[in-house]
Every structure is written in C-alpha cells, then in structure tokens.
C-alpha cells in the first residue's frame, strides 16, 4: 500500500513540476509580449510626438514667412541669413512659380531650379494653386550630404511660388530636447517604465525620470551600457532596434535604443512592470494544479486499492472454483465402478478422462442377475459440484431403477419422470443403457439423446448403431422410451462413448468426427475391450495434438465371448490311462476345431509329462483331466487331479540344463518343459487330491 502511495506521490510531483514549468513559460511569454508591446508603443508615441511637433513648428515658421514676404520676390543672401537666424532655422529659400530659387540664405542654392533635383521637384506641387503646405522627412541635403535636413514648404496665394524652410536634424533634436526635456521627465511608460534621453556623444543625460534626476547625470551611472546597446543602434527615423536587458537604477529593465539627431532616447520597462503577472500565473496555477493533483492522486489511490482488492477477490474466487472443480472431479471419478465383471462369457472395459472445466460424464456397469448385465454411459450437462451431485443422483437412480425393472427403456422412462419432478438446477443428461443377455448375446437397450454406439461385427466394418434415439433425460416429463435390441455374436463388440471423443478438437478447430472413430476401431475390431478403449484414447490424444481437453472423454467397450467349453474324463492311473488321456485331448481338439493348431503338440507334451508323473510316482488310483477351451483370446486350460500322495511339482528343483549328456541325470526335465511351455501352472491340494492347473494361451494370430 505504501509503495503504491509513494508511486502516486512521485508521479504527482513530476506532473506538478511539468505543469508549473509550463505555467512559468506561459507567464514569461505573456510578460515579454506585454513589455515588447509597451516598448513599441513608447517608440511610436515618441516619434509621433516629435515629428508632429516639428511639422507644426516648421509649418508655423513657413506660413508666417509667407505672410511676411507677401509674394515671391528676390532678396539678398544677407537678408535671407538674417531671416534664418531670426526664425532659428538652417535654410530658407524663396522659389518662384517656375521653380527657380530666387532668394536663399545659402548662396549655393541661389538661382538653382527645383526641377533639377527629384526630391526638390516634389515641392512644385505648391504651385498648383490649391496645395498650401508640403513637407518631407529628414534626408541628406542636395548640397551638403553629411547633414540630414527636413524641408517644409508653404505656398504663396494663388500658387505664385513658395517659401521652403529647412531644419537640420541635429539642430532640431537639440531644440526638441530643450523643449521636451520636461516631457521626458514625466513620460511614464505603463506603471513603472520611463524614458531616458542623453547626448549620444558623451551619454550625458539630458533628462531622466524625476525620481532619479539628482542621482545620475550620465547614462552609465544609471547602469546603461552603451556598448551593449550599440549593436542594436539604428539611425534616424527607422525603427528602434531590438529589445535588450539592462540594469538601470538597480532594476532589471527591458530597453530599446533609439538614436535621433545626436541624441539617444531609451524607453525602459522594469521587469516588475509585467513579470508580476508571471508570478501570479504560477502561483494561482500552481495552487490549482496542486489541489487537482492531490484530488486525482487520492482518486487513483482509491481506484488502485479497489482494483487490488478486486483482484484478490477474483483470485480467491478462482481458487474456490478450482477447489470446487477438484472436488467435482473426485466425486466423478470415485463414482465410477472399478470391479470388472468376472463372467468369462463377455469382457468389458471402460475409461474416462475428465476435463478440467466442463463435462459430467459417467459410466456404470453391474449385473442384474446371473444372466443379465447392465452397462451404460451418460453425460450430464454442466460441471462443478452441482453437476457432480446431480450425476450421483442420476447414476444411483438409473442403477436402482434398472435393478428393479431389468428393462432399459422402462427404467429410463421412470428415471426421466423422477428427474423431471425435481430438477431445481435445470440440468439434463444424455444416457445410453444396455442390458446384455449373457447366454444369448442379445443386448436390449434404450437411448436418451446419447451418441449412438459403434457396433463391431465379425464380418463387416464397424458402424453406428442408430435406431431413433429418445429425448435426453430431465428435459420433458412424460416421455416413454422405446426398447431396442441388437445381438452380438461371439467375438463381436460394442463401443459406447461420449461426445468428448467425437467432438475433440485439433489445433485448427476441426472435430475428431464420427468417421474417424470408425476408422480407429476398424483396425482392431476383434481386440479386447481394454485395447479398444486405449486405442480410442490414444487416437483422440494424438488428434488433439496438445489442444486443451474441452470435455470429458469416456469410452466403454463390451465384447461378447463364446462360453467356455469344458471337457472332462476320468482315467486309470496306468500307461493305458495315459494313452486314453492323449486320445481324449486329440478328440477334444478336433471337436473345438483346433486340431490343426501347432499348439496341440505342446498340449500333448504337457499332458504326457504330467500324466506320466502321476502314473509313475503318485501312487494314485486314477486321475481326471478337464479341458477348458476359452475364446478371445483363445486359451486351453488343462486341469489334472489325482488321489495320489500330496505332491507339488512346482516345489521341484529345475534340472541343470547346462550340464553335458554324461553329467545329466535322467528325470526332472518333464516338469521343466511343462513350466516353460505353458503360460500358467497352479498347484492346489483339496479334497485329498492334487490339482494341477496348466493354462496355455494361443498366440494372437490364432485368435478370432
């Protein structure tokens, strides 16, 4: 929990830092923007003020001269110089209507035509009779290129010539500084900004803000570094360069450097003018962001805590479900019968592999009486304890009903009614029930919606036993299941299974399918049921090829066998008795059509060895030979019993077969041969008789 909160705090602080940085940047940009705007405005204001004042003053001078002179007529240079001095201007010319300079304070200008110079020619507009004044910007003069001079003209009435007055930039700025010095002193920019004005040659301040008037008389004393400002210096009337930062009077200021007429005009805006805004930005935004982040962090913490507990809950839930399924599997497996029928007339084998999640398969087999045996395979819907318990109920119900009624169809009819009466979980099941008549091989069966079994006939390919199926159990009340019948001949089998077999999926999502099942069992239709079950399981596993098992896989195979045939006879314990016993064996083998089997010679040897032993050594009066022939797999069992002295031939020590002919004692070989040539030798003593049972299995190739 603490780890989680630490992580949230770290993320929150990081976000806070990012937001604050952004706010700082935005605040800075805003403040800079406003500062620049104020400086732009200061320059514009300064220029319009100065140039407006010059125009007004020069216009006033020119117009009053027009009135004084009355009309354009010549005057001497001296007279004109006198006028210029009085008027405090640098140049004065009188021009006639043809553009000829007829009077000037500058002798070089006298007699010159205005039309000879493009800029001067523009003044000819004053001769059109309507235009009264015309002014130009400061420019290099025609005769004195080093001097920047501004000209203004005023027309004589009726366009009869005009008076042109000129003022040098340097002269003008000096005038203006004197005139406007007090203006600069009071010229505030924004709240705290100010204008500095100084002589550009020595940076002596002509004006500075009132509050600093006494403290500083030179720009550098105010902190101004004219060297630093120089790269941005611009000449004349064109713009005011770039903003630069300078500490003035102890405050960090944003400044421009505007040089005009030998004077430097510096509008300065202290940082505090607008950068307080940035602080406000950061503070307000910071507090808000902090609050939001704290709230958000709390929220995230809650969400994470909740999801952690949800995960824990789900894990616990999954564990419970896993346990539930494990219990269900245990119930399911424990419910299966495990004692196979001992009757030699049929064989049965079943196998079930339970899936983890779904499936509620079960099978059952049990005798109904000495000559009837019931077997079934079923599939309950669902999985888990509910399904397992339902399975138990259904299984018990089916068994009890079958034991009572002996008839599969009648039993299913009754079981269905019973299950429909009480089915709170809405479960259902499919079941195939058969009852084998052990003596005849006839199977009576009924099917409640289950997969049809495979019947494996002796002389045909395996096929599905598909008479019409009834409805599955526990779905609809009142269903009457119909009895069906089939008959297995000796060696024939029936295979029951659940849809876990035919609906097994391979990695590509293909079903195992009905035909594949027929193919699988077709190759081994005469095999023992256990082999068939193994074969089907292996085929499904190979087919699935690692795909998870989706459903229970259940198989049950039953094979009908020929009833064993038993032949018995008594013989005297004599040599003739041995001969008679040999004949008896030969005749019996003929009767069961085995006379041609190579195994008969082995049986004869066994019979000869044992009977000769009885005759020669037991002291018996007679002996009995029982021959039992079992089919599928075929075996012959010989049982010898005699009334001689108790003698267990199996206790006999085997002779040493590695000895040479001279060393070898005669005798003992016979019993060794019996043991080695048979599959099972069992000695018992009962009713004062020695009973020796010898079983000889026939090779698989001789079966069926």
């Amino acid at each position: 929990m603490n780890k989680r909160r630490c992580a949230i705090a770290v993320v929150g602080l990081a976000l806070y830092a990012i937001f604050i940085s952004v706010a700082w940047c935005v605040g800075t940009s805003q403040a800079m923007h406003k500062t620049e705007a104020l400086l732009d405005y200061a320059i514009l204001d300064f220029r319009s003020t100065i140039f407006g004042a010059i125009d007004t003053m020069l216009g006033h001078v020119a117009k009053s001269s027009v009135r004084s002179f009355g009309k354009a007529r010549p005057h001497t240079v001296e007279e004109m110089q006198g006028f210029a001095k009085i008027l405090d201007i640098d140049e004065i010319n009188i021009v006639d209507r043809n553009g000829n300079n007829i009077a000037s304070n500058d002798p070089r200008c006298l007699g010159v035509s205005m039309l000879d110079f493009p800029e001067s020619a523009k003044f000819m507009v004053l001769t059109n009779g309507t235009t009264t004044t015309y002014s130009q910007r400061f420019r290099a003069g025609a005769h004195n290129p080093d001097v920047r001079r501004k000209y203004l003209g005023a027309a004589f009435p009726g366009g009869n010539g005009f008076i042109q007055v000129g003022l040098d930039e340097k002269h003008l700025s000096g005038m203006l500084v004197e005139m406007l010095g007090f203006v600069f002193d009071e010229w505030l920019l924004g709240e705290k900004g100010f204008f500095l004005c100084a002589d550009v040659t020595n940076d002596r301040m002509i004006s500075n803000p009132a509050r600093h008037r006494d403290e500083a008389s030179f720009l550098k004393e105010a902190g101004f570094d004219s060297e630093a400002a120089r790269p941005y210096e611009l000449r004349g009337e064109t713009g005011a360069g770039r903003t630069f930062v300078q500490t003035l009077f102890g405050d960090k200021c944003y400044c421009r450097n505007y040089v005009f007429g030998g004077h430097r005009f510096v509008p300065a805006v202290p940082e505090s003018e607008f950068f307080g805004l940035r602080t406000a930005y950061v503070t307000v935004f910071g507090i808000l962001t902090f609050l939001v982040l704290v709230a958000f962090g709390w929220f995230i913490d809650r969400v994470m805590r909740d999801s952690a507990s949800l995960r824990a809950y789900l894990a616990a839930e999954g564990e419970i479900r896993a346990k539930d399924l494990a219990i269900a599997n245990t119930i399911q497996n424990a419910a299966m019968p495990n004692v196979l029928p001992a009757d030699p007339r049929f064989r049965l084998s079943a196998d079930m592999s339970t899936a983890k999640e779904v499936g509620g398969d079960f099978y059952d087999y049990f005798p109904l009486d000495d000559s009837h045996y019931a077997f079934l395979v079923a599939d309950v819907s669902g999985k888990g304890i509910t399904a397992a318990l339902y399975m138990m109920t259904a299984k018990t119900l089916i068994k009890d009903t079958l034991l009572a009624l002996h008839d599969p169809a009648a039993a299913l009819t009754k079981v269905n009614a019973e299950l429909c009466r009480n089915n709170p979980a809405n479960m259902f099941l499919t079941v195939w029930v058969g009852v084998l008549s052990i003596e005849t091989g006839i199977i009576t069966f009924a099917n409640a919606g289950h997969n049809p079994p495979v019947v494996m006939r002796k002389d045909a390919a395996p096929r599905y036993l598909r008479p019409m199926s009834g409805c599955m159990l526990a779905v609809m009340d009142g269903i009457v299941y119909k009895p069906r019948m089939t008959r297995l001949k000796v060696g024939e089998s029936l295979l029951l299974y659940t849809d876990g077999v035919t609906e097994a999926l391979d990695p590509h999502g293909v079903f195992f399918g009905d035909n594949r099942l027929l193919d699988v069992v077709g190759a081994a239709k005469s095999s023992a049921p256990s082999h068939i079950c193994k074969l089907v399981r292996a085929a499904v596993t190979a087919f699935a090829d690692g795909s998870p098992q989706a459903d229970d896989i259940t198989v049950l195979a039953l094979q009908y066998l020929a009833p064993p045939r038993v032949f018995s006879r008594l013989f005297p314990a004599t040599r003739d008795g041995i001969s008679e016993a040999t004949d008896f064996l030969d005749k019996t083998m003929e009767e069961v059509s085995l006379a041609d089997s190579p195994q008969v010679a082995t049986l004869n040897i066994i019979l000869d060895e044992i009977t000769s032993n009885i005759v020669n050594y037991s002291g018996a009066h007679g002996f009995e030979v029982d021959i039992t022939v079992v089919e599928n797999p075929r075996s012959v069992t010989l049982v010898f019993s005699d009334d001689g002295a108790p003698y267990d031939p199996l206790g006999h020590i085997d002779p040493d077969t590695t000895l040479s002919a001279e060393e070898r004692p005669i005798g003992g070989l016979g019993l060794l041969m019996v043991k080695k040539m048979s599959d099972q030798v069992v000695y018992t003593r009962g009713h004062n008789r020695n009973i020796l049972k010898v079983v000889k299995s026939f090779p698989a190739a001789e079966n069926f």
Partner: protein
Amino acid sequence: MQIEKKLDGSKLALKVIGRLDTNTSPMLEAELKLEGINELEFDIAELEYVASAGLRVFLGAQKAMIACGGKMTIAHPNATVRNVFDITGCSGIFNIV
C-alpha cells in the same frame, strides 16, 4: 509311432514318425541296439513332438555314442521339437542337422 530302421555296417539310420512320448519311447529304446555302432542317425522330420521320455532315449543314445567314440546326428526337427531341445538345453548337446 513308426520307426524305419536302416543298418549299414557300423552306421545305424532311424526314421522316427509320429509322437515320442511316455508310451512310445520304450519302443524306440528297444530298437536301439548300439553294439558295434559308431555312427547313429535320427531322421525326425516326421516326428510330431517329443516328450521328456523321448528326450531321455536321445540322451541315452548320445551318451552311448560318446562312450564308444561314435557320432550321433538328429536331422530335421520340427519347430515343436526344436523348442523342446532349446528349453531343455539339449540343443547344445545334440548334433542337430
């Protein structure tokens, strides 16, 4: 059981047909007059099987032949007989051809 016997000087050839068991072995034993015989041949191609009683006859004959420095062969045993010889270790004693 039938026995076809052929004597050629010191060589005795016997063809044994049928079964060699407790009751028939004495018959074969009776036919084996081995005095002066140093070469003994059994043709058992038509012998169905041999029980331990028959085996004893063969072993006895083998001993006699070894004693007189003679030679004994058993020819053409079927699978059952061969199996008996193998089980009992007689395959290593008899000269089977």
